[in-house]
Every structure is written in C-alpha cells, then in structure tokens.
C-alpha cells in the first residue's frame, strides 16, 4: 500500500501543526534503580542481573539515591517544580521485557512538573513547556527470532536479555507545542538537541542516541489554520537520532495533510519510524489502549526530597548550554546566526574540537557546516558518525592554510578519508594530490586564454568579471589543483 503525501510546506500553509515530545533518558548511574547490578553497556546477555531485577520471589527493591538526585537535577535544569512528596507506581502489563510483569514507574505523582526549555530556530525563540519529568525502570531487550526483519511480525519466538531491565530511565514529557508553523520539524529537532546538551552538561547520562540511552517518541497532529480544536494525534515511537526526529515530523505532516485533504480522518495510533525510508507505519491503535491498573508501589516507601537537598543540587547546576555557547562564540568570533546554525546542525562540539585540534574558527566552522554536514546527508548518516576525526579535519585545514592543498583538493582528501582510504597524508601521497606549480599553472592559463579569445579580449579591455570562466577552465585543466587566487593573478597578467 502506498501512502499519499502532501508537500510539507504546502500542508503547513493550510494546517497548524501541534507537536508533543516524550523523551526517555537512561541515567548514567553505576547501578540500576532498585538493585546493585551494574549498568555498563555492552555486557554479555544476562550477566548484569540479580533476584530483584529478575523479579524473583522474595526479592525487594531499594531505591538508588543517585538516580533520585539525577532526576531532581534534570527537573531543576528544565525549570521544573520538584515534588515535596511523591511515590512510585506499578504499571501492570504482560510482556516478557519485564520479568515482574509490571514496571515500576511514576503515575500521578511525578518527581518534577511544570518546566520549560527554550530553543532558537531561524532567529526565532520557541518556549517548549515541560509537563512532567518522572523516573521509572527500563525494560529488558528482546530479540525476535524467525521473522524476516527481526521485528515482532512473523517471529516464531523471542530471546530476552535482562541486563537493561531496571536501569533508571527518566521520561521527559512536553505539553503540546503550538505556533511553530513551517518550523515544526526544525523545532522538534532543536528541542531534542538542546535537551541532549542540557543532559550531557549535567553529567546525568551519556545521551548516546545510537546506543539507545536517549530515545524519543514524537507526537504530531494537524488542525486547520485558525482552528482552536486540536486534531487527532499520532505517536511515532523510538525515533533514535536527531535527524530522524526532524524526518519523522516531516513525514507525519505530509501523511496527515494528505489524509485530511482527501477528507479522511487521522487514526489515533502508535506508529513505527523506519530509518531507511524516513517513513512511519501503523502499530498499536490507541483506541484499544491498555488498562495498566497503576497503583502505588507497596514495596517502596514514598520519596520526599528535602528542600535543603533540592537547593543544594540547584547550586551544583552547570551554566545552561546557551550561556556556555555564547562564551564559545565570543572567544571564536562567531555571530548568533553562526551559532544557531552550528547548534541545530549538531556540529557545535565538532567545530570546538576542531579548533582545539589547531584549525582556525572560520575554517573549522566552514568545514563542518559548509561541507561535512552535506556529505553526511548524502551518505545518510549523522554528521557525528562520519568516518573522519576532528584531528583529520584540522590537518586538512592546516594543509589548505599553508597552500599545500586547494579547497577543491582538500575536499577530495576529506572524501577519501571518509571513504576509508586512510589517514590524510597517506591519502594525499597515494593520489599524488598537490597544488599545481607555477609552471604548470602558466601553461594552463595560456591554454585557457587561447581557447577562448573573445573572453581574453574582454579581460584585456579591463573587464574583470570575465576572469571567472577562465579560472574555471584552469581549475578543470588542473583537476582542481590550481590555487584560484594565483590563477586569477596570472590570468590578468598573461591576458594583457
């Protein structure tokens, strides 16, 4: 079945989008939420389990104090109110990813409520309101066997590893975000990016989306422009990269827009995101929503974070990313627009590290924002996952500065490094890439002028604008190895 899509901007001319984001963050505590099992990632299956996280009879949970402190810190950094008294609740469901047949979570008494996070997109500030921040335990990992795609559908049985079961997981839920208009997809991405940076600066999680320690569910609905009644929303689960957050919003806008235009209704349902195609497909219908029978967890006593503890934690909060970034921009001479572009493209840290590795701020920014982000998009990967290190970018930039590589050659070198051909200097050596020497350049300039005598005549008459095509011809003749500035000088000199 093919899905009809509207064009994103066209849909948003006629419908107002309403976003909602639910983000799950695995906390970076040493041990699980209710037992002393290690939380280290990547251990062999079922080696980090004990009677408590396996739900064996007679075991009892005891809350990890660090997990409570981390959650309070997250709440404070997001400008939330911290509960003076709250409880864990049991969420009952039958699914083998939780061996107890319930998950300890929080229901109507979350630890933190009513906060916000500000983001900037296209010079415009958006305040994303946070409804709640609560603490729960993560589930085990299921491997579905026998199906064609590793998904549940068609599987004959499932294999479960409980190493992840019981790791503290914080859920951050926004209120509906309205008024984003055409910037909906970018605001969603900017929010998750900003949230990731806040969490990383707090030191409460390693926030690695590719390892699943930061996962996002994207809610989206459309309503006719000018309407006040919210439309029917869908919830796209487990969107696991910043790029995917933006793509998932775009896709749902286009899909829902086409349905509404055709006079069909949007079905309230959970949808799955497909990384390969950037599309979503239906999952469980929300209309048959489960009854989880939440009730206060009888095996745990209530939490009552002391005000002294809360204020003590508030005093340890690092400065917000926006302040840190402003200082970074100031030191390196970046404008507010530069900064926003780098933040929202997810390259600010990479630019900072490239500068630290010895490249100039302008060149560092230019390489990441002006070239490598585009390459990452072409290769369909996150820019941080490109197979090139900041040290390699700094080295290429250094060779460009010293005149040993032209910009064109430098990009070829970067491409070769990304393609896995080797380190910077090895790639240059193996391809024999070097800037054309003066003699070679003169030959190329003379040939280019002779080939286009009418343009040469214009240059002779003082028309500097005519130089461009000749520079282009020289570049082509030298395979991009000509120094454009020197070529320009030579053209003016040799034409007269």
């Amino acid at each position, binding site marked *: 079945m093919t899905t009809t899509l509207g064009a994103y901007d066209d849909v948003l001319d006629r419908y107002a989008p309403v976003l909602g984001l*639910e983000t799950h963050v695995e906390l970076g505590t*040493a*041990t699980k939420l209710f037992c*002393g*099992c*290690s939380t280290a990632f990547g251990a*062999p*299956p*079922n*080696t980090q*389990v*004990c009677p408590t996280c*396996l739900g064996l009879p007679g075991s009892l949970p*005891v*809350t*990890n*104090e660090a997990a409570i402190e981390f959650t309070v810190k997250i709440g404070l950094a997001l400008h939330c109110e911290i509960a003076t008294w709250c*409880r864990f609740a049991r969420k009952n*469901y*039958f*699914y*083998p*990813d939780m061996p107890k047949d319930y*998950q300890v979570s929080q*229901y*109507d008494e979350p630890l933190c409520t009513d906060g916000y996070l500000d983001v900037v997109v296209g010079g415009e500030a958006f305040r994303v309101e946070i409804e709640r921040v609560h603490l729960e335990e993560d589930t085990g990992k*299921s*491997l*579905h*066997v*026998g199906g064609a795609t590793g998904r*549940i559908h068609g599987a*004959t*049985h*499932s*294999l*479960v*590893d*409980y190493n992840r079961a019981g790791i503290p997981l914080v*859920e951050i*839920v926004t209120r509906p975000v309205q008024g984003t208009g055409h910037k909906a997809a970018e605001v969603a991405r900017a929010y998750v990016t900003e949230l990731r940076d806040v969490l990383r600066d707090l030191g409460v999680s390693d926030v690695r989306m590719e390892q699943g320690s930061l996962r996002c569910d994207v809610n989206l609905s459309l309503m006719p422009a000018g309407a006040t009644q919210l439309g029917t929303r869908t919830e796209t*689960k487990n969107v696991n990269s910043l790029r995917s957050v933006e793509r998932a919003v775009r896709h749902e806008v286009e899909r829902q827009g086409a349905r509404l235009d055709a006079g069909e209704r949007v079905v309230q349902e959970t949808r799955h995101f497909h990384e390969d195609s950037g599309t979503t497909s239906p*999952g*469980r219908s929300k209309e048959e*929503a*489960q*009854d*989880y*029978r*939440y*009730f*206060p*967890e*009888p095996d745990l*006593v*209530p*939490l*009552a*974070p*002391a005000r002294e503890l809360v204020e003590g934690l508030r005093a340890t909060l690092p400065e917000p990313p926006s302040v840190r970034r402003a200082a970074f921009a100031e030191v390196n001479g970046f404008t507010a627009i530069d900064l926003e572009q780098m933040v929202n493209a997810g390259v600010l840290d990479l630019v900072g590290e490239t500068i630290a590795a010895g490249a100039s701020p302008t060149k560092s920014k230019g390489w990441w924002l002006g070239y490598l982000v585009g390459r990452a998009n072409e290769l369909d990967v996150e820019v941080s996952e490109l197979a090139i290190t900041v040290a390699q970018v700094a080295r290429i930039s250094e060779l460009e500065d010293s005149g040993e590589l032209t910009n064109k050659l430098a990009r070829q070198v970067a491409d070769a490094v990304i393609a896995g051909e080797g380190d910077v200097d090895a790639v240059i050596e193996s391809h024999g890439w070097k800037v054309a020497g003066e003699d070679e350049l003169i030959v190329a300039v003379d040939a280019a002028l002779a080939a286009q005598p009418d343009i040469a005549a214009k240059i002779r008459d003082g028309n500097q604008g005519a130089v461009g095509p000749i520079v282009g011809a020289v570049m082509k003749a030298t395979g991009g190895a000509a120094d454009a500035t020197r070529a320009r000088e030579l053209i003016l000199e040799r034409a007269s």
Partner: protein
Amino acid sequence: MPDTNPAPVADGGPPALTRDDVARLAHLARIDLSDAELDHLAPQLAVILESVAEVSQVAADDIPPSSHALAMQNVFRADEVRSCLTPQEALAGAPQVDQQRFSVPRILGEEQ
C-alpha cells in the same frame, strides 16, 4: 505517558464491584474464569472490599491515606555495584534458553 486507569474510589463508601468488573479484572490478569466461577467469586470480592472499607470509618480527617504499612520515607541505597548472579544461575529457572537468553513464546502484542 500514563494511559487509562480506573477512576479513584470516592472517599467514604466502598466501590461497587460488579460481576462485569470482576470479569474484566480477570481478563487483565490473564485468569480464565468460567461463568460459574464468576458467579461464585464476584460476591466474595465485594465482601472483601466492604470489609477493608470499614477502615475508613475509623480513619478521622487528620489521618492521611497511606500506601505503605510503615511510616517511613526516603529509604535509599548508595550507588555502589554489588555482585550479580552468574548467567547460569540467572537462567536456571528458564523453561528454555538460547544464546544465553530467556527464550519465550512468540509475542503477539506490541512493545510497550
């Protein structure tokens, strides 16, 4: 985000528990009850609830509701790693083991 939950019990009176409620709870708990069992158990559960609800008659306004038998709060553990079970111990009770994992029947529902 929390989904549906039964409406909270109003203060004072015991909740009315119908035969349909019991049938629904049995389904949610994956207990297969016959009609005869429902006829037998539904009135019994109602009696149990009524008996427990008598507590609310002695609870004065100055006694806050409690979900725990002990008047305690903030019981914590330091974030220190303790030794775990070996995988052999952990999997000892599993009906089936494959690739050092618990092998379970095909999952029909959706991930939560």
